[in-house]
């Protein structure tokens, strides 16, 4: 490495430090504290100094790493090795992953907390896979995906509490409602592309949330909907003391009552729903409509010249993506037994989009890895409370620095040569 380069990257790091100082100076450095009657400013220059120092050091290391990629390539070899492992052995990887997911609830170290985190990760994986249809395959950047999640959750909650129908009837209905909203959103945005589409979908997500808050008669406004029925195991409820003449899960199977039964059931429920989403996506990619989505992502004019109807193709992508969002929403509603507009804010959309983008647009395995990584990291840092979001942001920055196209950026062809074993 040249001396010039070192000086150059050092200067660049100092400049980064300047930006960091401008940001952290007022935000962290000037802390207001109430003493007696008034607010006083207590400066914390030590902390600012530390943070700025960290920024300079971090920037310097990144610069050195990118300048010396050929000589000193710990990160790049590490990450390319990682992706070559995951790409070559994609099938083994997937099967191992599914097997692990199947036995996970019965592993000795698995407790209630792990199960809850696993259910949350699986919910995000399912949402990521659902959004992957719209963003990854059809190339339509949807920043309001949480709207369909919300529609699914509210349709499920309203149908279940009003009519008292079982989970298995309400689930497809909620999915249909969400798909209908997908088409509803689809129509006005068909002409839009890129940034403009993103803005409108963002607005749509907010509109749904604001309707949920204000349409008090139906949605119960900010108070949300309570008492959403829990799912039953094919008619057997998970109750400690079942009603007269009713069998519950633990009495039917002659087990000791445990709250874990319901958690494990929910876990398998979301696992199956997520796997259905994945299976569906993998299958539809090989059908003309799925291929048309990908073609539309690549070039809309070429699609038109070949007789692909972009209107219908985009609408199906929106509708199907929305449907899976709706399924995930129903699951969320039945798991929480309580939903309110609070749960469907923009940050949720942002997390789901982040999962899809960081995973590598269109990569199913990438979505799994990104979900585990992002949700896992925020969970690991749970004890640090307000620093969780820093960890979340840091994780995103790390992925973008080392894998700018996402964790798994390679697209797998849908047609393989005859005799190709994969």
């Amino acid at each position: 490495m040249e001396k010039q380069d070192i000086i150059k990257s050092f200067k660049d790091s100092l400049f980064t430090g300047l930006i960091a100082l401008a940001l952290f100076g007022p935000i962290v450095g000037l802390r207001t504290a109430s003493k007696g009657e008034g607010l006083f400013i207590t400066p914390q220059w030590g902390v600012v100094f530390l943070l700025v120092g960290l920024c300079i050091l971090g920037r310097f290391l990144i610069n050195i790493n990118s300048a010396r990629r050929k000589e000193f390539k710990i990160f790049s070899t590490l990450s390319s090795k990682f992706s070559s492992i995951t790409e070559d052995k994609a099938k083994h990887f997937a099967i191992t992953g599914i097997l692990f997911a199947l036995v996970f609830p019965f592993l000795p170290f698995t407790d209630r907390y792990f199960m809850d985190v696993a259910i949350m990760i699986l919910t995000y994986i399912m949402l990521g896979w659902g959004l992957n249809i719209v963003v990854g395959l059809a190339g339509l950047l949807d920043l309001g995906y949480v709207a369909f999640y919300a529609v699914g959750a509210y349709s499920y909650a309203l149908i279940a509490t009003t009519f008292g129908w079982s989970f298995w009837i309400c689930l497809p209905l909620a999915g249909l409602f969400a798909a209908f909203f997908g088409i509803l959103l689809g129509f006005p945005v068909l002409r839009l592309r890129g940034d403009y589409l993103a803005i409108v979908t963002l607005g749509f997500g907010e509109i749904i949330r604001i309707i949920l808050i204000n349409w008090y008669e139906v949605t119960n406004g900010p108070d949300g909907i309570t008492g959403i029925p829990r799912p039953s195991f094919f008619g057997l409820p998970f109750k400690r003391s079942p009603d007269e003449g009713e069998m519950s899960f633990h009495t039917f199977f002659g087990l000791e009552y445990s709250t874990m039964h319901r958690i494990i059931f929910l876990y398998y429920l979301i696992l199956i729903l997520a796997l259905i989403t994945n299976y569906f996506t993998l299958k539809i990619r090989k059908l003309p409509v799925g291929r048309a989505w990908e073609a539309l992502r690549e070039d809309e004019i070429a699609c038109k010249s070949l007789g692909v109807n972009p209107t219908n193709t985009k609408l199906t992508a929106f509708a199907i993506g929305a449907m899976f969002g709706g399924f995930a929403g129903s699951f969320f509603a039945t798991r929480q037994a309580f939903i309110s507009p609070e749960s469907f804010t923009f940050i949720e959309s942002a997390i789901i989009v982040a999962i899809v983008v960081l995973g590598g647009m269109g990569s199913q395995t990438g979505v799994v890895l990104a979900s585990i990584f992002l949700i896992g990291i925020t969970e690991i840092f749970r004890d640090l409370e307000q620093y969780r979001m820093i960890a979340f942001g840091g994780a995103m920055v790390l992925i973008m620095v080392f894998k700018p196209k996402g964790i798994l950026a390679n697209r797998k062809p849908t047609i393989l040569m005859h005799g190709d074993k994969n």
Partner: protein
Amino acid sequence: MLKISNVETFYGKIQALRGVDIDVNDGEIVSLIGSNGAGKSTLLMTISGVNKARNGNITFNGEKIENRDPHKIVDLGICQVPEGRRIFSRLTVEENLRLGAYTNEQGKHFETDIKEVYDLFPVLSDRKTQRGGTLSGGEQQMLAIGRALMSKPKVLLLDEPSLGIAPKLVNQIFASIKNINKEKNVTIFLVEQNAKKALELADRAYVLVNGKVTIMGSGQELLKNKDIQAAYLEGGTKN
């Protein structure tokens, strides 16, 4: 077969086509030459239904098509190979070809159709599993033509197939176009800036200037025309 009469197309307030009349008969190769901005691509996009004609008619075998959606026009048997090839670059060669068959009975005759394309362009067969974006310009053009052929068109609209391609491959592609016309009985409407090649290949040809057809005649006639030699061919002098 394809009859364009008095077609006017606008981009907002700007008029790109000022009353174009062109006939393409069954089994012909018809070329349209003209300089940049003459409206050649606009005309093809208007035939394909991507741009709409504000005035005038386009009929295909007697059916009016000027107000139809692009995918319905492809259904009728008019397929365009757009300018700049527009390959789906992240999709493999075979996936690109499958998309060409999108309107064509969902792969009923897929196997035989794709074999015909591979016979026409053997290089594509060698590169089936390669991504479209990794092909050379000439190979991409072959892929674009093959992709359009997968829809079993009666008329193939070609927009500047020689654009940005090595001269050797241009000859090969023009030979294939002739082959497609003669062997597969596909009528060809070719839009080109490479006037010499286009006129040599054409049964009949038109010259488009500022959105209007100024000269028409057989390919050989136009090659000898002094004005055309001066404006579009090398070595001519205007007198």
